[in-house]
């Protein structure tokens, strides 16, 4: 419990009077600052406790990890000198020397190991703790240290994994793996308000994070890495709605906008001309029909899932609902990821085919006649109503069954029903990649007992292929196994793929050199103010 003076609340009322009189003006005078849209971080700004985009955007700007991802999603060494392994289990990591946190503290192997130990310890209740479950010593039951981490020297440490992971180096660019200075461990709470990093930017001052308003970052002059900012700093403005951010962009008050509001999807290219950006992003949208629903188990279930998938005309839906700003899904991953393939055998189940859909549905009815209504649950606070209604209308029109959307008012209520498996309908599922690897789109969702396996899917063959992929010598080889796993997924459709996300965005007349990364986030350090 924190001790807050009661005065603070009374100030709420008193300050009104004060502010009334001064009418105080804010804003910066520095012309070389790029403004961009973000959202209020939902957690304190701690690397191991930030799992959403609002905070992630800030952490990626103020921290430098072992690697970072370039625009295509390929890992590039940031602070790492080398990351090597001979067996995909024992990894040796050497880091560059001479890097400093912005408070002057040297970044050493300890900065990494201590941060990861902290994040993994269950007692610390960090939201990203599951990230460390591949490292030896991690436990979901007991608060135990990671025995697999050993500091060799200030510039070298080793990691022993619990099982082989061919894509381990690829994971290391995720914010959960950033280093933390000693100051964090002294007082994690106040650190979360004023984080100290080692990245291209740093907080402009203590209290630079103005809650629900913005956060001011300035260039870190001592950052020696490759992501050297071409501007003087960032002002990340927290918008409640994309509508507001888009209005600011149109008025040239906002330099870089990631995301276009629904109401402008049709017109933004006209509005912005060559200042409009449209680019693929590592986001995958689907809906899941769990096996435990009546009529959806075994062979009958597989037939029905395929029939439902084939009764959806994805390109038509995307054109009508999103004005073409999504990409119809061809697999279970994302085209921005290395190893993606549009023609995995079985992927024709994602193509609209009314006749085949009816036929499969009729076959399923022979096993057990259909009864009831088909519903897809979604959270109403996330803008999903449009596409869910369209999907259920298409299913209704093609299969002639009753189908509708089932809204849950809040994300919390929706996720509770999904994760405690009480939900009695199909439900929307989405995935935003943490790191650019096929495995990240598959293992957490379809592996038996995996964390995000909300449909409780289990297939020993799929699990075995995942294991082979992880032990493979190279990423290319690994991806072959992951593709084979997807062939099985297409037969059983543990999730019905809908589309890949696309980042739409734009920029003001005051900036140039704006590009978006593999994850749909603008590459802010490259933006240049005219």
């Amino acid at each position, binding site marked *: 419990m924190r001790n807050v003076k009661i005065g603070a609340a009374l100030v709420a009322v008193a300050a009104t009077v004060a502010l009334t009189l001064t009418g*105080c003006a804010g804003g910066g005078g520095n012309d070389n600052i790029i403004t961009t849209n973000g959202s209020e971080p*939902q957690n304190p700004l701690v690397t191991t406790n930030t799992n959403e985009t609002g905070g992630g955007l800030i952490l990626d700007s103020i921290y430098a990890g072992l690697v970072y991802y370039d625009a295509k999603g390929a890992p590039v060494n940031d602070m790492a000198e080398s990351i090597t392994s001979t067996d995909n289990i024992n990894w040796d990591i050497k880091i560059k020397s001479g890097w400093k946190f912005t408070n002057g503290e040297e970044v050493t192997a300890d900065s990494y190991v201590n941060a990861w130990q902290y994040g993994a310890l*269950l007692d610390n209740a960090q939201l990203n703790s599951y990230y460390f479950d591949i490292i030896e010593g991690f436990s979901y039951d007991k608060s135990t240290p990671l025995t697999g981490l050993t500091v060799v020297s200030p510039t070298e440490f080793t990691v022993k994994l619990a099982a082989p992971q061919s894509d381990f180096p690829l994971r290391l660019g995720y914010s959960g793996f950033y280093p933390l200075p000693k100051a964090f461990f002294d007082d994690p709470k106040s650190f979360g308000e004023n984080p100290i990093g080692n990245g291209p930017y740093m907080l402009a001052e203590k209290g630079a994070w103005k809650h*629900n308003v913005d956060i001011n970052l300035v260039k870190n002059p001592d950052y020696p890495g490759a992501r050297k900012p071409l501007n003087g700093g960032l002002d990340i403005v927290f918008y409640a709605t994309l509508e507001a951010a888009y*209005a600011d962009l149109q*008025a040239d008050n906002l330099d870089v906008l990631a995301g276009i509001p629904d109401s402008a999807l049709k017109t933004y290219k006209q509005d912005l001309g060559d200042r409009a950006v449209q680019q693929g992003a590592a986001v995958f949208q689907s809906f899941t029909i769990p096996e435990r629903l009546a009529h959806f188990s075994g062979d009958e279930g597989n037939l029905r899932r395929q029939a439902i998938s084939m009764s959806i005309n994805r390109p038509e839906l995307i054109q009508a609902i999103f004005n073409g700003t999504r990409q119809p899904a061809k697999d279970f991953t994302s085209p921005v990821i290395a190893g993606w393939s549009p023609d995995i055998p079985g992927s024709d189940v994602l193509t609209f085919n009314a006749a085949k859909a009816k036929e499969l549905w009729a076959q399923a009815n022979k096993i057990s006649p259909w009864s009831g209504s088909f519903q897809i649950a979604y959270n109403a606070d996330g803008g999903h109503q449009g596409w869910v209604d369209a999907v259920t209308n298409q299913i209704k029109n093609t299969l002639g069954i009753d189908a509708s959307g089932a809204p849950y008012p809040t994300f919390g209520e929706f996720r509770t029903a999904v994760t405690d498996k009480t939900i009695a309908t199909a439900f929307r599922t989405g*995935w935003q990649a943490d790191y650019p690897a096929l495995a990240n789109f598959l293992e957490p969702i379809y592996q038996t007992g995996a964390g*995000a396996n909300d449909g409780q899917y289990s297939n020993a063959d799929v699990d075995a292929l995942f294991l082979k992929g992880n032990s493979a010598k190279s990423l290319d080889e690994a991806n072959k196994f992951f593709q084979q796993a997807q062939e099985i997924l297409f037969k059983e459709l543990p999730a019905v793929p809908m589309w890949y996300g696309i980042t739409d965005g734009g920029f003001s007349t005051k900036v140039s050199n704006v590009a978006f990364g593999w994850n749909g986030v603008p590459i802010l350090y490259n933006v240049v103010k005219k």
Partner: protein
Amino acid sequence: MFGYILRRVLQAIPVFLGTTLLIYFMVFAMPGDPIVALFGDKGVNPAVADQLRHQYHLDQPFIVQYLIYIGGLFVGDFGTSFSGQPVANILAQTFPVTIRLAMLSLLFEMIVGIGIGLVSGLRKGKWFDNSALVMSLIFISLPIFVIAFVFQFFFAIKLGWARPTVSGAANWGELILPAIVLATVSIAYIIRLTRASVIDTADQDFVRTAYSKGLSRGRVVRVHILRNSLIPVVTFLAVDFGVLLVGATVTEGIFNVPGVGRTLYQAIIRGEGPTVVSFVTVMVLIYLVVNLLTDLLYAALDPRIRYGK
């Protein structure tokens, strides 16, 4: 008079307890586990979730949670949000902004609403009255996001008269546009209310008396008709002030005003008990004061109304 005010202030105590209990119960009764939502679409780590539930006392029975919250209040602790921010700070940041917005909005409602309503009432059935009715109908049957959107597009983006969104400072000038948008819906009510009241008052004996005393029409309208018609209008304005404090969610969202409506909505959606209860509690206290002031104002507007016994 003083005794009356003192009694009203004392009444705030049961209201405070009643509101906090009721709201806390409602947040508690909201379905869904807020901790699960913290994990997003990713898997939930049960051990971490348990830790967090313990940290926010969500593993306690309802009444214990409530008592912990109330106990905290007595030592000046309003609790913390999931983002680790003391709720007291959030209150201190958002209420001034929203109170400014609400005050501006009320100002517009008063000037435009009472003005048009008065003229409508005095010229009942004439073209001015009818066009005022049509205008009010348009504003009342369009949802506020449409009005906000149209105003933002034309006045801010096309004409450039104002910033399309409000900056962090949220000073008076920037709040004018959202305040006008917020006022539009209530103006319709104020017009109808003022009009009805003016028509009613204009028929009263004392108005006839005033005319028969030879007073000028302007003076009769100002001193006798308007003043005596204001009681329902003032009441509605006071009610509306309360609505504006919490109900500006949509408008605050579109103009990006860092105010109460938006923050409270987020807190409700995320199931942050202490934040929701603290906001509503401050809001009730403000509301009690506003209601006391309006009750005192009645006496000023109509000398026949007296308090004190």
